């Protein structure tokens, strides 16, 4: 039915990622590598938030909370056994011998975030629009407060540090591919269609037999899983997690990427995540040379507002651009009406 173009694109993406990550890890310096890794993590975050916010239309501000849950879980699971008694003397007994390698730890982190999302979903998914936004923001703040106060496990405001630097460009690239692939598959499937339908008109979708709660909760959970994984990658990239890192500001930043890219468009989220991460870094030399710190943020905000004025649906709208999807083979070129 549909064109093979997406499959080629996926193949190209994987090939590009392999070549790119191998190439850059050999040639670039740490700074470039860090930016590339953060770009990748931002792609994961934006694409996965797009499932929640873009496909299902749930205006969630809680993405960093899921990141924090995934990040802390992964960090505790991979924490070096020698350092544990020194850094975390009050750790509950049962947690002391628990140790996992990086990959399973990431999965556990993601799954735990997804599990929490299920529970949160049960309580807040009845809310709509801005009310949901406030409730998820509340969830984020509650998670922050709990992390801040659960000293024995999280070391409070200081956070967990001294994590192994597991995350590198290859890890991130791998997860970027997995995220994009999964979200793409969801979008172009029965599940994704029902999410989009729920976003467009929940009552009509419901009348067509779409289970609103299941669909919304599923969208939240998928988003949370990848946010959790991204949190794990994030923590092992900067080797520390603290409650303050997973803030409302971060939530705003991810939402900006989703909106600028086009709510619902995976290609858009990827592009916007790349542009935003790089743009912020690009302003650094300017700020440093002239001592005008904060100018980068001002310019980016201005550009953001201009984009919203002149292209309110974002760069790609809800859809995916033609160069990725290809033309529908069956479509007879009709220009009727």
């Amino acid at each position, binding site marked *: 039915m549909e064109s093979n173009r997406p499959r080629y694109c996926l193949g190209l993406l994987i090939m590009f990622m392999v070549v790119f990550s191998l190439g850059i890890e050999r040639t670039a*310096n*740490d*700074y*470039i*590598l*860090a*930016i590339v890794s*953060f770009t990748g993590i931002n792609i994961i975050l934006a694409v996965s938030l797009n499932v929640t916010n873009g496909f299902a239309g749930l205006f969630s501000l809680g993405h960093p909370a899921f990141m924090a849950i995934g990040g802390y879980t992964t960090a505790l699971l991979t924490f070096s056994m020698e350092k544990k008694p020194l*850094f975390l003397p009050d750790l509950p007994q049962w947690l002391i011998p628990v140790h996992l390698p990086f990959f399973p730890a990431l999965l556990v982190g993601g799954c735990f975030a997804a599990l929490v999302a299920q529970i949160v979903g049960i309580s807040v998914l009845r809310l709509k629009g801005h009310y949901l936004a406030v409730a998820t923001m509340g969830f984020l703040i509650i998670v922050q407060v709990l992390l*801040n*106060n659960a000293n024995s496990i999280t070391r*409070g*405001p*200081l*956070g967990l*540090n*001294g994590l192994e630097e597991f995350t590198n460009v290859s890890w991130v690239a791998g997860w970027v591919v997995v995220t994009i692939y999964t979200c793409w598959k969801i979008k172009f499937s029965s599940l994704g269609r029902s999410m989009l339908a729920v976003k467009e008109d929940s009552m009509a979708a419901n009348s067509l037999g779409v289970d609103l709660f299941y669909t919304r909760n599923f969208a939240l959970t998928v988003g949370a899983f990848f946010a959790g994984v991204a949190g794990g990658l*994030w923590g092992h*990239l*900067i*080797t*520390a997690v*603290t409650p*303050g*890192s997973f803030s409302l*500001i971060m939530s705003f930043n991810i939402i900006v990427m989703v909106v600028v890219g086009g709510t619902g468009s995976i290609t858009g989220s990827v*592009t916007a995540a790349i*542009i935003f991460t*790089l*743009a912020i*870094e*690009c*302003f*650094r*030399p*300017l*700020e*440093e040379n002239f*001592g005008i*710190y*904060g100018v980068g*943020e001002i310019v980016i905000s201005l550009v953001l507002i201009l*984009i919203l004025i002149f*292209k309110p649906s974002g*760069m790609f709208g809800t859809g995916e651009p033609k160069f990725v999807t290809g033309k529908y083979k069956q479509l007879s070129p009709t220009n009727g009406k």
Partner: protein
Amino acid sequence: MKKCFITIGLFFMSLPLATPCFSAEPIKIGALYSLTGGMSSIDTPSLRGAELAVKIINKNGGLLDGRMIELISVDAKTDQKAAAIGAKKLLSNGVIAGIGHSDPSFVLPSAPLFQKKGIPFVTSGATLPTLPMMIGDCLFMVPFGDDDQSFAIADYSFKSLGVKNVAIWTDNSMDFTKTLSKFYKQRMTELGAKIVLEDFFMMGDKDFSAQIARLKNVSPQPDAVFISSIPNEAGLTTKQLRENGLTLPIVSGDGFDTELIVTVPGKELANDVYFSTHTYRADPRPEVIQFIADYEKEYGVPPENAFAPLGYDAIALIADAITRAGSATPKALKESLAKTMGFKAVTGEISYTRPSRVPVKGVSIISVKKGEYNVEEIWFPTTK
């Protein structure tokens, strides 16, 4: 639009790459401070202090037969991610040392990266005493540890102010303030004082009426209240306590070392406040007077808080170590820094003689009476 972005992006990306590395002429030092976001009110003065030090050193002919210091400053944006990226940026720029940060939460993601490369990192403001242990032999602290400043003010409040019952207010959102309270509590209990009330608030709080009402109702009434906060809440707590008719002494650590405790409540109400801090405020030593004069001349305002001289000292300390080592390689610098003995910094003499490598420095006890700052005594750590 997109193309435009990418073009601009590539242009700026290429800037740091394109700058050719001059043949080791200037000595590059990296500075990591949060110049935007919540920490900026604390970190910006530090950077200004550091820049002042660099300017003075370069004006006097630089180091090692005329090599200039080049201070590369990166904004950590009150964000750990930016702190880590910033550290990597500095390291890939070939700095021989890094300075910065006034809070351990930001030292922790950036300093280990320096440690890994064997490049020394001098934190100008983070006072967590376990930092050198957590990061390694490349981390050096300019300030004293929180244990010292807490012990100092505890000793003073017990012995000189005669405080037998004390209330403790802690900003529970920061590690610095929690640590400060922990050590104060420890010392006061050792001395035999009683903690009659422990209360908490969060950074960014503006209204302390609930805490004040509780303080008024506690029995027995405390002889003093210890407020562990950063400068942003120092003036507010003082003002609100005094306005509510509480005249008991307020004691604190270097978070209270700010003009705000006088300007916010006004001179009348800024009374009976005591805090321990870096020995520079109201201190007659020549290096302090010189620093304040230079700072005022450069920026038109007196140093905003104690973090300004600390930033200045971080550079001065490195410069001293480079001069002593006669070389500007990271390895030599690290060894030379570790051997620092009796370096006369603005904020007190620095010697790394302790096994913990937290400097043994004098701690000033400052009193504020009707808006006037006075040095009450200089406290020295007794142990080790």
